[in-house]
């Protein structure tokens, strides 16, 4: 019989399934759970984009597109980035349309990382960065971010983590799971550390439209001297509520994009055609829909923050994405224990902060991509749970 232990490399077998997956299995066993655990919008894709997809299907546009994506779409992305992050990218050679931001992250890492390289991964953060680094033979080096710093990346922590082997820094802001963002002056300090080095920045800006209060999202690519060392990753999943369409993109320096495009050619050919047409419409005709969603998220955000603070689980004010990250240390429980008890006793699912890196221990991730009614019902149950714990 074939010995899969030998067939499958140790490196692959050693990859841990994400803590989210484990928690999903638990949540699924419990009947009647109400969830605050999803990482995708509750809104439907704006109708104009859906209609365009129907339209192109009717016209039979079902062939591959150019490897890098439809040129009209790349032009619109270029225009969007110019307006939104004030950075110019040539649609020919500096932008690739990818299968979600996920593929863009994977391409960036595979194009940059070789065995022996270290990649700096600020945590808590999204679950895919470290496993991809590992698959590439690199070593993920976590940088701890703490609530005292509002879960922002400190320039001195960054400096301390850099070694001669450092190949790249993941810059995961606005952040999933904490909702933290980096303001211009904070990014400036990070840029100061990186300028003059050969360290690349992979800036995961998938939540860039979702910032609340104050100045809009600033990309590190827009800071002086940074565009040449930054790969911007973004996409349509969150902003346009298009998670299932699997469409994202990356923009960066020509020599890097050229290598990434090769990888993309060989493993993907081209991103989904129908999705690309719909994305053109999303970029050109759906601003009002996006603004409406953003306003709704912001209201829910304030409601949820207040809810947790009122029940005594302190919650720093998240300024981005659609998550809040309340601290549950006062309950004396580990975050996975808290989440399991909550789901069994009150049937509410939130995600243990520890699923996003060790520094997420003591927190839980709460998504507010739900209706206000759903949120208030779930908050009420969590409040009961916390009250009962005090007895």
């Amino acid at each position, binding site marked *: 019989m074939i010995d899969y232990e030998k067939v499958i490399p140790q490196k692959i077998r050693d990859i841990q399934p994400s803590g989210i997956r484990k928690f*999903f299995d638990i*949540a*699924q066993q419990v009947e009647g*759970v109400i969830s605050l655990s*999803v990482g995708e919008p509750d809104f439907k894709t704006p109708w104009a984009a859906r209609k365009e997809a129907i339209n192109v299907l009717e016209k039979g546009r079902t062939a591959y597109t150019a490897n890098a994506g439809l040129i009209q779409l790349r032009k619109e992305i270029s225009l969007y980035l110019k307006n939104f992050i004030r950075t110019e990218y040539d649609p020919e050679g500096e932008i690739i349309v990818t299968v979600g931001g996920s593929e863009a992250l994977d391409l960036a890492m595979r194009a940059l990382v070789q065995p022996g390289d270290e990649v700096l991964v600020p945590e808590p953060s*999204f679950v895919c960065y470290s496993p991809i680094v590992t698959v590439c033979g690199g070593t993920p080096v976590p940088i701890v971010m703490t609530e005292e710093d509002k879960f922002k990346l400190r320039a001195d922590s960054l400096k301390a983590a850099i070694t001669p082997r450092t190949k790249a820094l993941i810059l995961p802001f606005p952040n999933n799971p904490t909702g933290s963002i980096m303001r211009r002056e904070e990014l400036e300090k990070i840029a100061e550390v990186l300028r003059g080095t050969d360290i690349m920045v992979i800036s995961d800006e998938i939540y860039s439209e979702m910032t609340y209060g104050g100045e809009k999202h600033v990309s590190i690519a827009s800071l002086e001297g940074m565009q040449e060392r930054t790969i911007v990753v973004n996409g349509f999943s969150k902003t346009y509520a298009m998670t299932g369409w699997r469409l994202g993109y990356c923009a960066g320096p020509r020599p890097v994009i050229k290598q990434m495009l090769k990888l993309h050619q060989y493993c993907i050919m081209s991103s989904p055609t129908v999705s690309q047409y719909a994305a053109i419409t999303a970029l050109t005709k759906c601003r009002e829909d996006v603004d409406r969603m953003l306003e709704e998220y912001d209201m829910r955000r*304030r409601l949820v923050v207040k809810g947790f603070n009122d029940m005594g689980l302190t919650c720093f004010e998240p300024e981005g994405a659609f998550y809040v990250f309340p601290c549950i240390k006062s309950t004396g429980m580990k975050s996975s224990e808290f989440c399991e008890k909550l789901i069994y006793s009150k049937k509410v699912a939130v995600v243990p902060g520890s699923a996003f890196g060790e520094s997420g221990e003591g927190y839980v991730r709460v998504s507010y991509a739900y209706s206000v009614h759903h949120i*208030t019902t779930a908050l009420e149950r969590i409040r009961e749970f916390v009250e009962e714990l005090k007895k």
Partner: protein
Amino acid sequence: MNNVNKKLLDLLKQNARLSNAELAAMLGISEQEVTAGIKQLEQEGIIIGYAAIVNEEKADDNAVTAIIELKVTPFKDRGFDDLAHTIMQYDEVDTVFLLSGANDLSITITGTSLRKVALFVSERLAVLDGVLSTTTHFVLRRYKEKSHVFNEEHSDERSLVSP
């Protein structure tokens, strides 16, 4: 209407049970401002009441709702108002609308049985002065009312937990 009141109205139309504290948090204003805004909306007659949206079939197995369209002769000077006012007085009547188009008044009523609703139409409505004809439509199923979807538990297709 000022912007705050417009937003308050939007939120209350969705969910009238949000507390003033919750409304204040959501809109980023003080509770006093919320109280004042709601008071103004009520005083100006913009908000005329607060009511639950009920899944009647679940609340009472036999409950029936009917939409009744009436053709009527308008009275000189007073148009349709007199008749509408008369019909409004009946407790069974939930809504009374004046319509453009082929029919004139549209009424919804909810009764405890089919028979009661039918009798109400024939004995109370059809006989009113000015009523020329009635058409009764019984409601078979409710899907959505005031933006609320019935049986919503099936509508979220997202995975329960995702990264």
